[in-house]
């Protein structure tokens, strides 16, 4: 039998489902239907449960207004039984040697469903016998997803015009460092949050400068785009470390970060209000950027031209589009966006700069972009997924899950690899990506 992706993932789910099934069947006495309770937070949740001795995972959705708070109580064993059966079913069907197109599509959809189900399942199993705050969990997913999603947008601008950009990491790091340096310089003379805003402007600009370098090397000089990107990454690492020791350590920088605010009215919506409409400026700009990128790409003349340049620069050139200019501008805009993602680290979150503080986020952003098949909304979904798996980190530690922290910290990277390995279907890059354009 030929080993295909479907085959491998089917085996994985079959095994996972089998293990879960064995675990669930050892506690058959605990199998009960699920129920949802609306309770004020201060009432101990177990009071509401009639069947004693049943392990439940309690997902809390607290709200400032007690009457809007509710808890989702899920009987852990029954839930895992259902999921286990589903996994086993999907896995078995995936192994049935049916080759026709419809069966293949059903198999793929089943596997994708199982893949999505992993997310709540991990959380519910981790919270067995305990309760966990879902609002903060979802909020953390969005927050941690912010630099990934913004970075992915930076990647889309570049790569849709046909320039591979593995230097997003370096551009982010530069933005983070120079933004913070600028902030330390001006903060004394500018009261309030003004310094931070200047810092953001500098971060964005410095990301753009790095991108200019990338464009210069890869568009004008036609250097291999991966070489150019790698050099920028290494360069950024050295330069920012130098900046930190020579400038930042000497400045008496405070740990101030951008302040949080809520959007009036919208932030009062239960659950969504706190997750989506309360946050810091760069967090909000993420939503704007995703929408803007989408509109730019699909509804403007510039977007059409960009896509043409990325797919077939020769044809675009014939039609009078200036390929070099288009690539320059798109790469630089991408760099500006990456600089903003860098500001998220130093100015919105940490209130300081550490060496290599972006720790691979630029690469994860690229993975999210590939996950979304180079579309803004798809990439945003990918970024959110990675944000979730990072949020899981802290959650696991809070819940005392007996898995070493280091293994939990690997999850984003494992997810990245699984995504890149193509569970979501072969990614189709813009056709001309990576090739310098030679005018004939």
């Amino acid at each position: 039998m030929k080993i295909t992706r479907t085959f491998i993932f089917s085996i994985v789910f079959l095994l996972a489902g089998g293990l879960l099934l064995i675990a669930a069947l050892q506690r058959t006495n605990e199998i009960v239907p699920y129920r949802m309770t609306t309770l004020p937070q201060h009432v101990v949740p177990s009071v509401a449960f009639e069947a004693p001795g049943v392990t439940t995972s309690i997902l809390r959705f607290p709200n400032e207004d007690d009457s809007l708070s509710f808890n989702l109580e899920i009987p852990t064993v029954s839930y895992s039984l259902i999921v286990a059966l589903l996994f086993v079913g999907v896995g078995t069907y995936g192994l049935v040697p049916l080759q026709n197109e419809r069966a293949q599509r059903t198999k793929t959809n089943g596997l994708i469903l199982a893949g999505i189900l992993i997310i709540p399942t991990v959380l519910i199993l981790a919270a067995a016998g305990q309760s966990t705050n879902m609002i903060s969990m979802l909020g953390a997913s969005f927050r941690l997803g912010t630099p990934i999603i913004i970075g992915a947008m930076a990647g889309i601008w570049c790569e849709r015009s046909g320039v591979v950009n593995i230097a997003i990491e370096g551009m982010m790091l530069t933005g983070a460092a120079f933004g913070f340096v600028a902030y330390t310089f001006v903060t004394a003379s500018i009261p309030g949050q003004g310094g931070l805003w200047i810092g953001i402007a500098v971060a964005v600009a410095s990301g753009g400068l790095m991108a200019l370098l990338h464009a210069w090397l890869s568009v004008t000089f036609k250097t291999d785009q991966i070489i150019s990107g790698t050099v920028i990454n290494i360069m950024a690492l050295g330069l920012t470390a130098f900046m930190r020791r020579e400038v930042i350590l000497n400045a008496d920088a405070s740990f101030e970060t951008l302040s949080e605010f809520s959007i009036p009215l919208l932030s009062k919506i239960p659950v969504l209000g706190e997750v989506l409409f309360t946050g810091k400026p760069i967090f909000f700009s993420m939503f704007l950027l995703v929408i803007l990128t989408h509109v730019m790409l699909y509804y403007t003349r510039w977007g059409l031209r960009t896509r043409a340049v990325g797919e077939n620069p020769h044809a675009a050139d014939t039609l009078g589009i200036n390929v070099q200019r288009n690539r320059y501008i798109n790469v630089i805009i991408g760099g500006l966006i990456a600089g903003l993602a860098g500001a998220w680290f130093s100015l919105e979150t940490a209130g300081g700069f550490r060496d290599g503080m972006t720790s691979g986020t630029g690469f994860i952003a690229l993975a999210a972009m590939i996950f979304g098949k180079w579309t803004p909304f798809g990439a945003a979904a990918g970024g959110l997924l990675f944000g979730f798996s990072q949020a899981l980190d802290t959650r696991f530690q809070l819940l005392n899950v007996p898995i070493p922290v280091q293994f939990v910290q690997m999850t984003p990277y494992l997810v990245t690899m699984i995504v890149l390995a193509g569970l979501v279907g072969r990614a189709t890059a813009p056709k001309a990506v990576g090739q310098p354009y030679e005018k004939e």
Partner: protein
Amino acid sequence: MRERLIRLGFTSGALILALGVTALLISMFDHSPIDVLETAWDGAFKDGRRFSAVVNFWIPLTLASIGLVVTFTAGLWNIGIEGQMIIGAVCASWAGLYFEAPSVILIPTCILLGAIGGMLWGMLAGLLKLRFGVHEIFGGVALNFIAANIAIYFISGPWQPPEGGSAQSTPPFQAAATLPRISDDLQFNLLFLLITIGAIIAIGLLLMFTRWGLTLRAVGKNAQSALLLGVRTERVTLSAFMVCGALGGIAGAHRVLQAYSSLRPSPAGGIGFLALLVVLLISFRAWWVPFIAFALAAIIAGSTRVKTLLQLDQSLAGVLQGLIVLTILIFNGLADRLTRKDHHE
């Protein structure tokens, strides 16, 4: 001929520009570039001990670089070299901590385990690429992080010192795992030096004169036509990853045995990335590796001295390296344009 001269001129021009920019940076922070140069030179070459520090940096850097020459020849971007070094270091550390044997057996065992560990980790990147189409850059970056986490797991978990865990290091290795040094003055290990020199010669000759080298080059130049000509591209790609991983693993073993005598977080310490720079600088020619690696090792060893004496940080070395590669790339681009124009005329 004229083209060569132009190239040479441009490359030296690039070096001068990079040094100039660095000098400018140094003077921006109120130091004299000449002082810095003098201190750095002293720091690297003043006596046997300081020279040993250069050699001890040169050994892993050269091993990793020579491995990268192999993967680059096959057209592969093995960014995962850092992770391969880390896994090599972890495997060697196991032997260093728990494999009780006299020095003569123990040290070769450490090296061998390091090589095997690195080889397997390299193979993983290769398999991800070949079987699942994960580009080696992304696979490599992810595997680097995973390797770093594995190292930290062992340090703060199973291998923590008996007096209680710190995330800083494992207990020191057995006494038998201490690398013998040539003399009090020359504090580097002969075996590793020989392995390194052997690796340079072996890889250089293999690439130039064997069928394997030829197929590697064929795959690197044009994988598709190589496949059509009957080269088993998958096998060649995998072998390149494995050779590179093994050399990286030995480099990792050297790091833990020589530098720390225990396993610490990020044992590779960025040497893998530095090796990438070395290989980019020499555009993948094996014979140049030892010299460029030596120059970089001297810059780095020298800059630690600069740090203690002049309060200028050693990250300056990183800036200089980045600048050198960058200017050379830019000047290469300029030279390309110039020579191309010549052809038109």
